[in-house]
């Protein structure tokens, strides 16, 4: 066995002061069993130590009323609480009660703002003067740009040049919000180069700059901090479910890329042993891997990944046998990441969270189904959760909560193109859109 076993942390649950002890995991040392940690260049260590300290003071201990201000801004600026809505037609279709947690209604159109607002506000409390972030498809970048504008913090977003060309509306949104968008031209010009470039910036500017990471990944304290900011999803959903239905759900479903909406949706349910937790990953075109090309045509790191170290943390990864990170693939750019948050990797190993892969085809069907039966156009990321529902509803209990992590307006072009390329049984006639393509 690996050396990391010796460092497995005792879960401090029993003595935890918080209402729901499940949230204590990883708080002190960033370890989730064998996962987590702080695998970063030495130059960044002081910054993440400073951040861990600020996390403890402001987030955990509400120093200077940080959490109060955070929650108030989430309500007023972000639009929280988001509803827990009964999905009438899906409930009928699956003969089970389906409830939707409507994170798509959050300002910006996805759960991403919960975290971005939390971190930008924290940076302000820490006396930082500048925000940086990386973005792939642009969702985290737009959320960060909005939060930075709202809180009057100068903000620079790094984005690969190729991604910039593919995601112009999001680039424009960031610029409108007053952020500087810096094109990254090295390598292939996508998310990984943008991450490196942001790290580079941070390594030079740690003293006055905060790096806003977009999911429950990266070195400690990011995974616990992002989880705690996103946990508002499950705090609300748990209360709403009890209030609306008189009890806990039997199942909770969320898509998983890095895993921030996933852990946000699961956090308060982890200790409710009766509640099954389903993390739905992007199965891409297939779960087979092309070692020679270094390509995994999926993003199912929980389901198909192997332990390794990436972007500051030990977790489950899509990698080749040498340990080189594979290029992942998914119809949804927001799930298209070769790693996953260490806490989710841990909860999967513990058997507490079930990972399921849903492929591109099923996700597109899910996309169209939610759109035309419930009047909610979901993000393609979110659509995977509805692909899961269609394929696995017979295995579910009588009360299912699904997190609608984001809306699909950003995905219209991709949805047209991807729908056109395959035979999606429940798609509308697309000819008027695809003819000119």
């Amino acid at each position, binding site marked *: *066995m*690996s*050396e*990391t076993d010796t460092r497995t942390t005792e879960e401090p649950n029993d003595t935890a002061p918080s209402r729901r002890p499940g949230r204590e995991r990883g708080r002190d040392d960033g370890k989730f069993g064998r996962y987590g*940690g*702080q*695998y*970063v*260049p*030495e*130059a960044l*260590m*002081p*910054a993440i*130590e400073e951040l861990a300290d600020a996390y403890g003071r402001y987030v955990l201990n509400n120093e200077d009323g940080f959490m109060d201000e955070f929650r108030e801004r989430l309500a007023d600026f972000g639009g929280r609480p988001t509803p827990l809505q009964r999905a009438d037609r899906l409930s009928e279709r699956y003969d089970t009660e389906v409830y939707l947690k409507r994170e798509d209604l959050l300002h910006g159109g996805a759960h991403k703002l919960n975290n971005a607002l939390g971190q930008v506000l924290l940076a302000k409390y820490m006396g930082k003067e500048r925000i940086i972030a990386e973005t792939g498809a642009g969702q985290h970048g737009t959320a960060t740009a909005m939060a930075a504008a709202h809180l009057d913090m100068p903000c620079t977003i790094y984005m690969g040049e190729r991604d910039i060309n593919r995601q112009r509306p999001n680039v424009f949104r960031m610029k409108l919000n007053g952020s500087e968008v810096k094109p990254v031209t*090295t*390598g292939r010009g996508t998310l*990984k*180069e943008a*991450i*490196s*470039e942001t*790290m*580079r910036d941070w*390594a*030079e*500017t*740690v*003293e006055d700059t905060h790096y806003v990471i977009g999911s429950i990944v990266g070195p400690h304290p990011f995974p616990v901090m992002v989880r705690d900011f996103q946990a508002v999803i499950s705090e609300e959903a748990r209360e709403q479910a009890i209030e609306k239905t008189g009890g806990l759900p039997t199942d909770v479903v969320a898509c998983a890329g890095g895993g921030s909406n996933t852990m946000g949706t699961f956090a308060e349910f982890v200790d409710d042993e009766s509640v099954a937790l389903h993390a739905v990953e992007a199965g891409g075109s297939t779960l087979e891997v092309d070692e020679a090309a*270094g390509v995994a045509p999926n993003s199912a790191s929980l389901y198909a990944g*192997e*332990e*390794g*170290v*990436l*972007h*500051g943390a030990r977790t489950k*990864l899509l*990698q080749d*046998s*040498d*340990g*080189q*990170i594979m290029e992942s693939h998914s119809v949804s750019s927001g799930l298209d990441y070769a790693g996953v948050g260490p806490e989710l990797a841990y909860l999967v190993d513990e058997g507490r969270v079930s990972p399921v892969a849903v492929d591109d085809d099923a996700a597109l069907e899910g996309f169209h189904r939610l759109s035309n039966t419930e009047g909610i156009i979901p993000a393609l990321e979110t659509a995977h959760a509805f692909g899961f529902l269609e394929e696995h509803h017979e295995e579910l209990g009588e009360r299912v909560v699904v997190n609608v992590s984001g809306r699909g307006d950003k995905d219209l072009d991709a949805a047209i193109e991807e729908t056109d390329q395959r035979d999606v049984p429940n798609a509308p006639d697309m000819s008027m859109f695809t003819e000119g393509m």
Partner: protein
Amino acid sequence: MANSEAIAAAFADGPAYVPYLVVGDPDYESSKAYVEALDRGGADVIELGLPFSEPIAEGSTIQEALVRSLDAGMTPTRFFEFAEELDVDAALVCMTYYNLIYQYGEGEGPRPFVERAAAAGIQGLVVPDLPAEEADPLREACDEFGLDLVFIVAPTTRGDRLDRMMENVSGYVYVQARLGTTGARDDVSDQTTESLDRLREYDVPKAVGFGISTGEHAERIVAGGADGIIVGSALVDVVAEGVAEDLSTDEVADRLEALSRELKEGARRGYRSRTEAVESA
């Protein structure tokens, strides 16, 4: 603390010149010629970069070199063959990221990688994304196979962290001359002097890197108290130029050798002025 006698020897007598190149950049054979040119140019220790797909600690110069090498087919297996085939006098150190070390060979953990590295003649490791706190298993394997484990000390590293690191370090410490990632710069930072002051009490050779690109830099740094200089991006730039201008391997090798001589000379001048200063004091 030292496991490798070769590395200890490299720092024993005068300032060490520690150049870095990415193995396999832009291809296996040229790369071998380039490393050997460094050796001819006076290298005491050579840091061989084994490319990782997500090099979060590198500047763009080295990042591009890593991509060139990966695209040309570099793997850990090939890397060790490369090291074995090298005909050099300098001590060899492998610089790479932790995931490649962790995944190598059968079974989990870093031991198989270190065992193979030892067999290939590698004397030490630098792992930029492995802080001292996570380094125990690798440290044990290095001790077992006689390799040094080099840590990087940043301008911001102090107090407990510095102590812990200095307890674990062996061979030499890599003193990061300034905040930021790797990359050639035009000046030498005040942060270097500060760092060397902070490290004075620790009994381990201090090699300064990040941004050194000329003999004059080298001179000033060694004059300031460094036991060695580490030069990466400036050399990788020469390789990149060769690619961009389609130069012959020999031409590039000659340039690398010449730059090495200049750097080594600079280091020596710095050393002389320092020892003279000490003697005249």
